[in-house]
Each structure stands twice: as structure tokens, then as C-alpha cells.
């Protein structure tokens, strides 16, 4: 197997990573497999893969960096992949650098694109909070590691299939695991998973005051979209922090992202540029949001949004 995709769970970003793995395998003329760690379901992976492993052990039921690194090192020794791909989740950020280091390697983290040049993989990632892009290459022998940014690849591009899980039980001892994780908990009301939203209507400073938020809420409700916001709106407390999109908030990649009264500072753009279709409504024709927008209306949002609500209602 030449590409191994390590899935964190069955949906979302892990499917994006599977799609990326399949695409790279096609371009490199090689095979792709997958591994699920710590899962307890025998359901096949709904993708065309050479092989899929279910990495199972009592000590993997709760995530620990020591347990995951040891288990994955053993799986890599067995499967001998050239490239190992991960979704760039918080959990992956916690253990992947340790795994790569234990094999004398550096993982290329937070990859947004790739291309194949002369049979070698070139990975694109961002520097300086998205202001600069860099082409990165691996030096040296397999295995080489990379994690992929949320929304960089599309889950709906997974080549469908059904791959049965083959059980892999690593040798782990309780004494090897030095950290003791507690139960997961939440402190406030359930956070909104904007990353899973298909349609997003996002509002920015152009909305002027908190009393105007219901107008964009109504727009979002009309098309069944999640409401999101740029940072100033959340800092002002007009919408909860969990609805913030951008470098300090969530990274999203919906089918459609409609930015209402958002100028498009880079800190916002990095969080939403993976959206398939971007619509911008802004009174300033020079606002940077129009640089990433597919469709736009230059105008007063207080006139445009009510008109849009009316038009959307007609299509229902």
C-alpha cells in the first residue's frame, strides 16, 4: 500500500482525507488504504480502497498520544505506506508530530492543495496566517506524513465502494501510557458545528448594530442555512463565539457561503475560502471579499437582503 489514510471518525474531515488519498493514488499510479483507530464498529468503509484496518485495543478506546503513536507505528511497520495522510484535527495536531519524530520525520501540517511533479508529491500549505503560500517537498525515505486542512478536499468526491475492515490489534501495555485522560465535557450550550453546514450565511460589521441581526437570521432560515459571523460581531457579543468563522474561529467549507456586510480581512478569508460557492453582498466594490466571491451584489445590504429573502421564498 502506498498511501494510508488514518481516519479519526467515520464522517466529515476524515472523508475529505479519504477523497484526497484516492485522488493522490490515482495521480501517483498507486494504491490507497485506510485505518480507523479505536473504533468499535465493524461496518465497512464506504469507499473504494485496497484495504482498511480497524486498529483495536482496550487502551485505544480513549485517545492518548502514547497509545496512538505506538499503535500507528506498529501499523505502519506492517502496511509500509509511502505516504500517511491525516485530517488536520486537534487530535491529529496532538499526536502526529510525535509519531513523525519517533520515525525521524517531519509531518507537513495543514496542507491545502497538492500536485504531482515528476512522480513526487508537492504539498501546498500556508505561512503567515494565509498571507503566503509555500510548496513543500519531502526529503528522504518513506514513510512521509501530512495532515490536510478542513475543507481543502471534498468529501463528496470519495470514490464510492465498500471496503471491509480488517482487524489489527497492536501490542500495547498500560505502563506505556503516561497521560491519564478524563471524560470529555462541555461548559456551555452545545457548540454549533459550522464545519458540517452545507449552506452558511455569514454577517459582518456592515450589519451596523445588534438589532439588525434578525434580518440576516431570517435570510439564513429561508434557505435552511447556518448563521455565522466575522470576528467583530462575536467580539461585540452580537452572536456567540461558536458562530465565528476565521483563523480564530471555525474553518468551514460549505456548498455555499454568503457573506453579508463582510469586507473579507485575511483572518476571515482563511476560514471560508474552501467554500464551493462564495456570494458576497457589500456596499464597497473594492472590498477584498469580492476577490474570492463567485457571485456578488454591490449594494446596501438593508435593501438587498429583504429582496433576496423574497426571491428565495419564490423558489421554495
Amino acid at each position, binding site marked *: 500500500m502506498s498511501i494510508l489514510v488514518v481516519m479519526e471518525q467515520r464522517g466529515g474531515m476524515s472523508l475529505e482525507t479519504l477523497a484526497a488519498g484516492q485522488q493522490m493514488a490515482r495521480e501517483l499510479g498507486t494504491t490507497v488504504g485506510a485505518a480507523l483507530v479505536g473504533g468499535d464498529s465493524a461496518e465497512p468503509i464506504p469507499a473504494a480502497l485496497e484495504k482498511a484496518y480497524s486498529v483495536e485495543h482496550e487502551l485505544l478506546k480513549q485517545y492518548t*498520544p502514547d497509545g496512538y503513536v505506538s499503535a500507528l507505528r506498529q501499523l505502519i511497520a506492517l502496511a509500509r505506506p509511502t505516504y500517511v495522510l491525516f485530517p488536520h484535527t486537534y487530535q491529529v495536531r*496532538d499526536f*502526529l*508530530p*510525535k509519531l*513523525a*519524530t519517533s520515525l*525521524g*520525520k*517531519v509531518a*507537513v501540517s495543514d496542507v491545502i492543495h497538492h500536485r504531482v511533479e515528476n512522480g513526487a508529491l*508537492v504539498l501546498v500549505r500556508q*505561512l*503567515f*496566517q494565509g498571507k*503566503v*503560500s*509555500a*510548496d*513543500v*517537498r*519531502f*526529503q*528522504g525515505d518513506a514513510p512521509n506524513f501530512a495532515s490536510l486542512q478542513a475543507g481543502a478536499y471534498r468529501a463528496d468526491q470519495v470514490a464510492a465502494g465498500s471496503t471491509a475492515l480488517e482487524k489489527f490489534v497492536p501490542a500495547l501495555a498500560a505502563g506505556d501510557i*503516561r*497521560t491519564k*485522560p*478524563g471524560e*470529555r*465535557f*462541555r461548559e*456551555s450550550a*452545545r*457548540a454549533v*458545528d459550522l464545519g458540517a453546514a452545507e449552506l452558511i450565511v455569514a454577517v459582518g460589521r456592515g450589519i451596523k448594530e445588534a438589532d439588525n441581526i434578525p434580518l440576516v437570521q431570517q435570510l439564513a432560515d429561508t*434557505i435552511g442555512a447556518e448563521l455565522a459571523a466575522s470576528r467583530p460581531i462575536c467580539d461585540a457579543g452580537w452572536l456567540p463565539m461558536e458562530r465565528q468563522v476565521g483563523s*480564530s474561529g471555525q474553518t468551514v467549507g460549505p*456548498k*455555499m457561503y454568503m457573506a453579508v456586510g463582510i469586507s473579507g480581512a485575511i483572518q476571515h478569508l482563511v476560514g471560508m475560502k474552501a467554500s*464551493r*460557492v*462564495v*456570494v*458576497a453582498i457589500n456596499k464597497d466594490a473594492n472590498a477584498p471579499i469580492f476577490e*474570492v466571491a463567485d*457571485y*456578488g*451584489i*454591490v*449594494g*446596501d445590504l438593508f*435593501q*438587498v437582503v429583504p*429582496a*433576496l429573502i*423574497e*426571491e*428565495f421564498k*419564490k*423558489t421554495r
Partner: protein
Amino acid sequence: MKIVVAIKQVPARDSQLRIAASGRWIQEDDFTFEINEPDAYALEAGLQLKEKHTGEVVVMCLGPARASQTIREALAKGADRAIHIEEEDLTGLDPLAAARLMAAALKAEAPDLVLTGLQSDDLGYGQTGPILAELLGLPHATIIMEVEKQDSGIRVKRELEDGWFQHVEMPLPALLSIQSGISKLRYATLMGIKKAKTKEVKRLTAADLGGASGPSITIDRVYLPERTKRTQLFEGNPQEAAAKLVEKLKFEARVL
């Protein structure tokens, strides 16, 4: 508690970035530099732990001579002494090569706790903490909001995704990557600035630490992201523009 905080000096956040003639890095000539903001939170966490439990805070910085300004500022805020691994050109070091130098510099220190920021504002790999932990043979946890000392080690609060948290216990020595924005950063006092001038800064070079290892990843080229999209703008009165937009979204983009 003996605490080492790894800090980095990076271009100021509002710097206008241009690509260097080599195409491999940015043009840094007329920049101002400052402490990497996530590292400032790691330093703050270290200083607070010292105030609570007594001990020592040592800042460690890998960077060129100009980084001594950032080191002085950390000393002025309350760090007790510093280790400066002086390297003029960091572009040939990947995160592992950089962390190997730091790990070598820490061999003689034997700290109880090593703290790092979440990621750097320039390269942004977000890996130095866990890499350093593996090289030093320490347990680690990342994106830490709170640190509580216990009889047998520490208990930390770790941020997970989607508003979830988790407590994790581990023995000392250990390494933690601190979440940004969790506390209010202190300013250096006049007394602090004065004292900083006499605090010890130990200077080391890569050669002192066994030399830099070859990279396992390399940056081929850096560039400004290309503008790839052409926006279709709809004009006319709001009702007409809205009608045209909805039609496009439905029949061309097919997102509705």
C-alpha cells in the same frame, strides 16, 4: 518548579509581506519583529505557575542576534534567565532540526515543565511542542487552558473541538502547548526592564549543540496566493439583482 518556556521572534503581525529574490522566503529587511503571540501566552502561563508554586522560569529562544530584543522583553516581564541558541539563518531548519537543537540545549537543564505556544505566526507548523516532547522523552498535551499542580504531577484542561474540553493528568517532567487568549498578558514594569539588563543570557550555537541535522521536509518556493476567481456581479435595483443572483445559485451553481 523549574519551567522552560520556548519562545520565537517573528515579523510583527501587520507586516506587509513581499517575496525575497530567492523565492524561498520573504523579504525581511525593513521589518519589525516581536515575540510570537502564542508564545507570549506560554510565557504568561509559566510566570503565573512560578508565582503560585515558586521556582524558576527560563526562556529559550532559537533565533538570530536580533532575537535578543525579544529575549530581553521576556526577562523584563519576569523570566529569570534565558538560553539563546543563536542562528542567523533558520530557513534551512525544519521543525525537527530546530527542536533537536532545543532538546540538546535542555539536556543540562532538566526542567520540570516545558511550555510552548500553540504555533508560530510565521511558519505555523504547530509542531514544536510535541516534537520536543518526543525528543526529550516527556509526556505532553496540547491546547492547554489551565494547569493545576498535584502531589504526583499535573492536571491540565485541554481544549478539544466543538466546545468540548477534557482534563488530563500526567507525571512531571512534562511538556505543554498553551492555548492562546486564555489570560491577559502582563506588561513589563520599569523595575522589570531595569532588572532584565543584569539577568543571565546563555548563548549557544548550533555547533555547540552537535550541529543542525539535515531537513526531512523542504520549502521549495513561497509565493503570494494567486487570485483565481472572477466575480459575476449583479446590478440594477436590489429586487432585480436579487432575482438574478437567486437564478444563478439555483441553475448555474446549483447550491439550492
